[in-house]
């Protein structure tokens, strides 16, 4: 660890890394093959080849914050067809610490996950979880909640930790501002994120093994977003994330920022929309041209007994299911639905955590299946019909369709009858 920190703060090493990166450009550890593009919308189906396996996109990536996915074993996760999941740099950097994980052969070795991992920069958690954080040009300063020590998360430090974790995709440290903030702070954050991107690129020790994604910022201001896109797409990064959204902003603003971003992102690189995971949002944002998504919602909600179904969600703990002997979703092929009824899960919730594990498995299966069906329909050229059928199933009637989704889809030539 000490060595990597030095490397990041030493400008000569940084320059060396830059030239090394250029030399290894051909050996970039990511290849995107576009399998199909929807002729109507901006949706695409791709094969994203990463160091540990190929990921079929559009893809939902479950979040395993602390190097584990909420009671699910890695074999179960693999069994559900998950090709990539997330780990959180902030949490893992705190406990057990990046040097320990490095000694365990990275996060892959530590959690024994054979497929791809994406790690965030740690910046978002810092700003949202830690009260005493201060952002300067240097980085994000905060007090450790464990020992009170002051810690500086700089772009170099974030990348150094992510290098230790050994993730297949790393995220740049960005200057995160709540999406509801307006004014000069948003512009400052956007420009700073660009500068930090350059520092992150320079700090990456493993450009031949680990992909660094840039994060487009700019809040809800179209001009700032556009400026950020123009600057960042000049950098030769393997992929782009759309950041600073899904933080409580109006959905009308949200989708406009998404579609603006995908309009200006290069076709040949993956686009990752951060923090999005509700089924409707996923389907609409795939239509707007996004490839990758992550969200804690499906696994978090499972622990409260909320099972995701094509018609919304089903609260297993509600009394109405006590004598309901059907599976959660009779059409679902997941291990939970193949074996257990709503009534059994309802009763099991009173005595055993395994009940949560059952719902977690179902919810991950639901998310992954949804994305598989989306992809299939894109490949078969019937994505527009897929969207219409999906919306009909999800909402009891046309007038319950969220207006933002109707508008967003209309903007890419999908009219919902």
């Amino acid at each position, binding site marked *: 660890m000490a060595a990597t920190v030095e490397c990041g703060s030493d400008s000569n090493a940084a320059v060396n890394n830059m030239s090394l990166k250029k030399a290894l450009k051909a050996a970039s550890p990511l290849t995107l093959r576009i399998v199909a593009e929807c002729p109507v919308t901006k949706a695409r189906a791709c094969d994203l080849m990463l160091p540990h396996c190929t990921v079929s996109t559009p893809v939902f990536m479950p979040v395993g914050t602390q190097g584990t996915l*909420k009671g699910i074993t890695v074999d179960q996760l693999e069994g559900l067809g998950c090709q990539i999941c997330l780990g959180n740099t902030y949490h893992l950097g705190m406990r057990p610490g990046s040097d320990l994980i490095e000694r365990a052969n990275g996060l892959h070795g530590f959690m024994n996950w054979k497929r791809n991992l994406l790690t965030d920069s740690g910046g978002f958690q810092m700003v949202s979880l830690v009260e005493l954080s201060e952002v300067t040009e240097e980085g994000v300063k905060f007090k450790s909640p464990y020992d009170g020590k002051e810690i500086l998360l700089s772009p170099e430090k974030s990348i150094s930790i992510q290098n230790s974790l050994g993730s297949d995709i790393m995220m740049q440290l960005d200057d995160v501002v709540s999406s509801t903030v307006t004014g000069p702070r948003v512009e400052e954050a956007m420009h700073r994120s660009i500068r930090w991107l350059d520092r992150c690129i320079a700090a990456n020790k493993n450009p031949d093994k680990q992909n660094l994604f840039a994060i487009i910022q700019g809040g809800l201001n179209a001009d700032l977003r556009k400026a950020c896109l123009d600057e960042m797409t000049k950098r030769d990064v393997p992929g782009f994330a759309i950041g600073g959204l899904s933080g409580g902003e109006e959905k009308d603003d949200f989708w406009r920022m998404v579609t603006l971003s995908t309009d200006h992102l290069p076709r040949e690189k993956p686009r990752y929309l951060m923090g999005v995971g509700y089924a409707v949002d996923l389907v609409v944002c795939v239509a707007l041209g996004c490839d990758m998504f992550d969200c804690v919602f499906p696994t978090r909600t499972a622990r409260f007994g909320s099972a995701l179904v094509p018609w919304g969600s089903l609260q297993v703990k509600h009394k109405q299911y006590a004598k309901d002997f059907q599976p959660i979703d009779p059409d679902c092929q997941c291990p939970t639905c193949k074996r257990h009824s709503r009534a059994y899960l309802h009763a099991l919730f009173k005595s055993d955590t395994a009940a949560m594990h059952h719902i977690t498995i179902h919810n991950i299966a639901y998310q992954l299946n949804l994305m598989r069906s989306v992809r299939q329909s894109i490949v078969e050229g019937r994505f527009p019909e897929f969207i219409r059928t999906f919306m009909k199933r999800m909402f009891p009637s046309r007038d319950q369709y969220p207006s933002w989704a109707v508008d967003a889809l209309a903007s890419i030539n999908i009219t919902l009858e």
Partner: protein
Amino acid sequence: MAGSRMKLELSRVIQGRVRLGVLKGLGRTGQHSLEVPGCLLYTPFGTVPHLTQDTLHTLSKLPRVSQVTLSNIAEHQEVLEEFKDGFRKFAGLHDTVLYCSLHDPAAPCPTGYTTNKTVSVWGSGGRIELTVAKFMALQKSVQPDWYQSMADGETWQSNTSRKRVRKSVDRTLAHLDECLLAHQNSKELEGVEVFGVVEGGDILEERIRSARETAKRPVDGFCLDGLQTGSMDQALRIQLTSAVTKELPEDKPRLLQGVGRPDEVLDCVEAGVDLFESFFPFQVTERGCALSFSFDISPDPERAGSTPPTVLELNEEDTAGDMQQNGDLNLNDQTQMTCFEINLKDKRYQDDFRPLVDGCGCYCCRNHQRAYVHHLLVTNELLAGVLLMIHNTAHYHGFFVALREALANDKLDLLKRRVLRGEQTERKE
């Protein structure tokens, strides 16, 4: 019972007491069997705690009998009655024999709620009072393959009076007669086996009376109740158990309730017990520990790594360190660590990249390291319980396999020395 098929075939009886054999003809079609001395699978509500069926079935050689408990099931009686097809199907279990006990051996059971006609069980929704009629109605909705009859086991507190003990024996016999009567008149329970319950607290004469009287009834086996860990010291338990098993017919199985520690299990097998409940690995899991005691008595040291159930090289250094936290002194507190386990929450495991137990073939040990389990525990992650439960279940049932092998090969003493080694190390310190 008429129509019952459970049959105990003993292959060896050592010193007239220690029994090795197979309990055959289990399940509705009689196709299942269980080796004795053996252990039931602990599934209070049809699920091994923390484990889904996928994770459970990473383990091989699990017992074919699952223990469910009325204390967990009773509050769902109405649901089961509407479901009609019994608890096994309700819980999504297919190919397992279902044994239904009254209480959950790992859950507390407050005293003071027993009457002449009722006993109480405690579920998630609180206390449920059972009469024999309600008890039997529950059995009809659960449709187990085998159940223990209703019993008043409220004698385990050390200050229980002789009068109270006598009452518990009388009541339990009366409950048994009533259960058997209802059972014989029930078409739904045809072919289902009943175990009578031997009570008697810590009073030898009452134990013997209870055993003799219960043995006169048409029961298929016996539960020995009120001898659980925490109720009395081991010497008294062994004395009473030996006296009881002497009174029981040779050809019927004896299940000892509430005893799970490996050292106690070994002594009780010597006292003539055939069956145990596997709540112990669950208790170990709940305190963040991993079973690590050695039970490998194979002469070939290389075998340890190649055969999953006969685990391990016990790390002497580990054992010595763990002993300081050993909770042997406090018999009543079952949340305390024993000398058969290591505490994965301990900081020393934070960078320990070995499996929980070297050579263990369980899913956890094949795939994960102590450092990872330590991390899951300190971060309160649900997977900690899952992985520990897998390992502890594998280790515990592996111990029973080793126990039977030892009996078959006249090596019980060697096994005892091996299992107790950790404890002896501790005593010396």
